[in-house]
């Protein structure tokens, strides 16, 4: 077979697998995470010309929790598609689904890009065989479904991987194992300084998306240092965008006179108390439960690499794990940074095992390891991504949207939505910004003592078990008494059973479905929509 054709086939295998695992049934699986609503709301604000920072007065109360590139990127990409106007949005279920579909397809495409970038990184640093294995694992291992959600980790991942890739293309060192690739002369070669600067820009953008990405500074910085021939000047060039881009965030707060808010919410975010279910240990446990094979293989491979004095995979995971241990408030999806390194470590180990088998048996047999793992992963991933866990979600969402009247000129409607934290905020971005139905809301999670008064005559309740518990608490609040009174006089207009975890069983992979909604306050069971108007 022609070498060029073989090369394209080898890269197409992981890309096709990745396209399947990340773009198939994006509406059905996984469940819509509450953070997706937050990031989409902020992207909508950018699209409306209101910038990346929510108002401290009318927006989500936790103002300065993350930097801005996440919403800028989302808004930029969606805006290029004419989103949301190009969908002719309405309050019906199909419209609500379409509005969720586009950003999820975007995230799926980013994950396919991640697969390609990991292939190129591994090919550059190691070999094409290891690159195929690593990128196939990234494409199809079960935990890769986390990249299907609109999350900051998924948005920053291609920028992080691109930063690593550019660092690996710096030429000034003999410290590359695959000499053939290092020595290959390409007409597309770029100058070292540009590569270094680009690496810095992409890492800076990753950190400007979410601050914990700074834990990748040791990895990429070390690569730049050694690949540039231990040049401190190169490190200096690289470091400028790495530091200055994230500094736009505090700079913004200073310019708008809200540096105190910035400091307050940054410290709040970094000092969030771990609960029984949100700890570093539980995050690791959940990661393992969601994908035991990649965890075991990945750790084994990283240890094996370190023994072989290749510290790249270890350097990739160590800072983020140490940071997570120190910060304590960690969830499984915060550990996505380590997933590519796990795939890389696994690939190095599998490649080693393949070589040993090939020595003693027929070479074809040596491929049995990766084929078995891939086959198993395809089955497990297919079992997950073919689920429909969101159908009731879209029905509840559409019902809420239909019950809020439209207004002209963005005049506030005479409706207050009261429900659990999950529903009042998750249903906000479409009703408020896409359908132009601005309304008030009361969130018992952020206003636990019900200090906020109902300001409208019309109230729409989203009754779910979490909300019903919150209004049944013994609280000395006139506002709560009023809410209870309105609630008692309201009429149920629709009810649904949220089926988000109904497929849960004791066996893998369905035993991981409760983890999918863990710690986000996603109410399950009956969700009733009531109104008093």
């Amino acid at each position, binding site marked *: 077979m022609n070498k060029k054709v073989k090369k394209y086939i080898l890269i197409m295998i992981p890309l096709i697998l990745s396209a399947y695992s990340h773009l198939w049934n994006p509406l059905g699986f996984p469940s819509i995470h509450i953070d997706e609503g937050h990031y989409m709301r902020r992207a909508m604000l950018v699209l409306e010309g*209101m910038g990346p920072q929510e108002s*401290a*007065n009318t927006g989500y109360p936790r103002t300065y929790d993350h930097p*801005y590139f996440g919403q*800028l990127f989302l808004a930029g990409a969606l805006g290029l598609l004419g989103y949301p106007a190009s969908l002719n949005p309405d309050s019906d279920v199909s419209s609500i689904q379409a509005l969720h579909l586009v950003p999820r397809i975007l995230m799926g495409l980013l994950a396919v890009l991640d697969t390609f970038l990991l292939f190129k990184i591994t090919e550059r640093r190691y070999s094409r065989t290891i690159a195929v294995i690593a990128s196939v694992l990234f494409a199809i291992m079960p935990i890769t479904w986390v990249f299907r959600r609109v999350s900051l980790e998924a948005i920053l991942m291609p920028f992080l991987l691109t930063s690593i890739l550019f660092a690996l293309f710096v030429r000034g060192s003999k410290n590359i194992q695959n000499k053939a690739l290092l020595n290959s002369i390409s007409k597309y*070669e770029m*100058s070292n300084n*540009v590569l270094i600067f680009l690496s810095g820009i992409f890492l800076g953008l990753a950190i400007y998306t979410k601050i914990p990405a700074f834990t990748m500074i040791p990895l990429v910085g070390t690569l730049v240092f050694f690949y540039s021939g231990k040049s401190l000047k190169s490190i200096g060039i690289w470091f400028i965008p790495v530091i200055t*881009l994230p500094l736009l965030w505090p700079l913004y707060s200073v310019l*708008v006179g809200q540096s105190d808010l910035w400091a307050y919410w940054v410290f709040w975010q970094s000092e969030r108390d771990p609960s029984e279910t949100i700890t570093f240990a539980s995050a690791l446990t959940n990661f393992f439960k969601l994908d035991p094979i990649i965890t075991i293989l990945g750790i084994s491979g990283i240890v094996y690499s370190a023994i072989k004095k290749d510290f790249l995979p270890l350097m990739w995971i160590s800072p983020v794990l140490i940071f997570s241990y120190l910060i304590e408030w960690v969830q499984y999806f915060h550990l996505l940074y380590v997933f590519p390194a796990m795939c890389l470590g696994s690939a190095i180990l599998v490649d080693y095992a393949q070589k040993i088998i090939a020595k003693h048996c027929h070479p074809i047999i040596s491929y049995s390891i990766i084929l078995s793992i891939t086959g198993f992963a395809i089955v497990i991933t297919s079992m997950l991504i073919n689920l429909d866990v969101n159908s009731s979600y879209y029905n509840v969402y559409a019902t809420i949207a239909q019950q809020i009247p439209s207004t002209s000129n963005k005049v506030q409607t005479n409706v207050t939505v009261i429900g659990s934290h999950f529903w009042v905020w998750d249903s906000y971005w479409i009703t408020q910004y896409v359908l132009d139905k601005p309304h008030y809301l009361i969130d018992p999670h952020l206003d636990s003592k019900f200090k906020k008064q109902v300001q409208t005559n019309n109230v729409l309740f989203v009754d779910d078990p979490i909300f019903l518990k919150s209004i049944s608490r013994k609280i000395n609040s006139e506002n709560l008494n009023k809410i209870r009174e309105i609630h008692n006089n309201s009429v149920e207009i629709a009810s649904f059973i949220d089926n988000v975890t109904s497929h849960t069983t004791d066996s893998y992979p369905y035993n991981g479905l409760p983890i999918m909604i863990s710690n986000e306050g996603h109410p399950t069971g009956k969700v009733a929509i009531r109104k008093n108007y």
Partner: protein
Amino acid sequence: MNALSSIVFGVALLGLTLVVNGTFNHKYDNSRPLTQEKIEQRPVNVTDIMNLKGNIISLQYNDSSVPEWILSGKWQIAPKTDNNTNTNTTGKPEIKFSSTITMTSIDGTKTHKHRLTDFKLLNISFQNSTAIINGTISLVTSEDDFGLIDKDLENVPVGITIMNANTIRIDIDNNSVKQHFGSLPIYGKIG
């Protein structure tokens, strides 16, 4: 720098310009009353402290600063009439404060109870998120502590401080109660 490097560098700079432009070039809404309240705490008034109630959660130390008594119980601030902000002819709000305090020795061998009743308001003031109420109370003591303190003490000066509508400090005049509650105030929580 070759041609490709120049082009890529130019595109990168353009991208950076877009990011900076997206960050800063937009309509601004810098209003912030809600969040500012949370940080600096909003000023309180009579309405905010009316109908508050909660638990007494405090320790009393001996002269060697060793915990000696555990104080627990309930407290409540309520209007004297149905109207929350009703004021009397002197312009002072008509509020009543009452509390029950159970004192249990650290070793668990001794227990006695107090009731703080018949509150008479002298003055009330507000400093940002703190309410300071001064008045007098009657202290009624029950069970086996009569040797240490009179069973009924009237017109005992008391200072009540409500902080951020979240915590309470009760300062009972030490001389009137023969240092019965030690040198530190009694603390409690709202809700």
